């Protein structure tokens, strides 16, 4: 696990929004033939509780968050032939339809970019220390973790 990452990797935890076309442009500067971007968005509706969401606030564990994402990216670099990775995760207060997370992966060929992006997102959801609290009519509620997120990581076990 001590092997160094040799491709360009950008990991950012930030309050401000991100620009997908700017991030794609950065990934395009690598020796690449394919880019897969994932963008997570705040849903204005809580499907599990059948209620509307007015806003959502994300907190994280500074220091550990970056380390965990780095580990996931490193693992991804070892499993797939990819040429660049960008992970941006927002924290603070967000509103429905706001962008929360960006995972962009470039590769020479598309399948590596698809699989690596999927892998990073699945593990980020179960390992990176972020927590969401939803607001509905001024009531705050910490979001419960989703067992299906754990299930999603099982497909990557070799």
């Amino acid at each position, binding site marked *: 696990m001590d092997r160094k990452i040799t491709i360009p990797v950008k990991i950012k935890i930030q309050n401000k929004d991100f620009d997908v076309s700017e991030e794609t442009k950065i990934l395009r500067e690598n020796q690449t033939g394919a880019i897969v971007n994932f963008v997570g968005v705040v849903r204005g509706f809580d499907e599990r509780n059948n209620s509307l969401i007015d806003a959502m606030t994300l907190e994280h564990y500074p220091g*550990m968050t970056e*380390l965990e994402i780095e580990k996931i990216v490193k693992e991804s670099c070892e499993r797939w032939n990819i040429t660049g990775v960008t992970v941006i995760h927002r924290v603070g207060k967000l509103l429905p339809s706001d962008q*929360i997370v960006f995972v962009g992966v470039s590769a020479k060929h598309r399948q590596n970019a698809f699989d690596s992006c999927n892998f990073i997102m699945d593990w980020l959801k*179960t390992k990176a220390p972020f*927590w969401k609290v939803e607001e509905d009519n001024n009531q705050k509620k*910490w979001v419960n973790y989703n067992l299906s997120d754990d299930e999603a990581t099982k497909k990557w076990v070799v």
Partner: protein
Amino acid sequence: MVIKYFSWIKEHIGKSEEFIELPDNVKNISELINYLNNLNDNYKKVFIKKDLIKIAVNRTYCSVETKISNNDEIAFFPPVTGG
């Protein structure tokens, strides 16, 4: 040692972090939890939900058996919900 709390655990305990001098008989996370539980009921109410608590030592996931020392940064938090 510094102990950090996040999400609803932070709210139940009433602080986001605290500094404690580790007693000599506390050698691992399990013993630390016992020690905290004896401080007041807020800790008990949190740590009784042990299946919902993740632990990190020096920013790395670990278990209740993990050995600890006074220089460590410990964190207790619920399963993560980012992305």
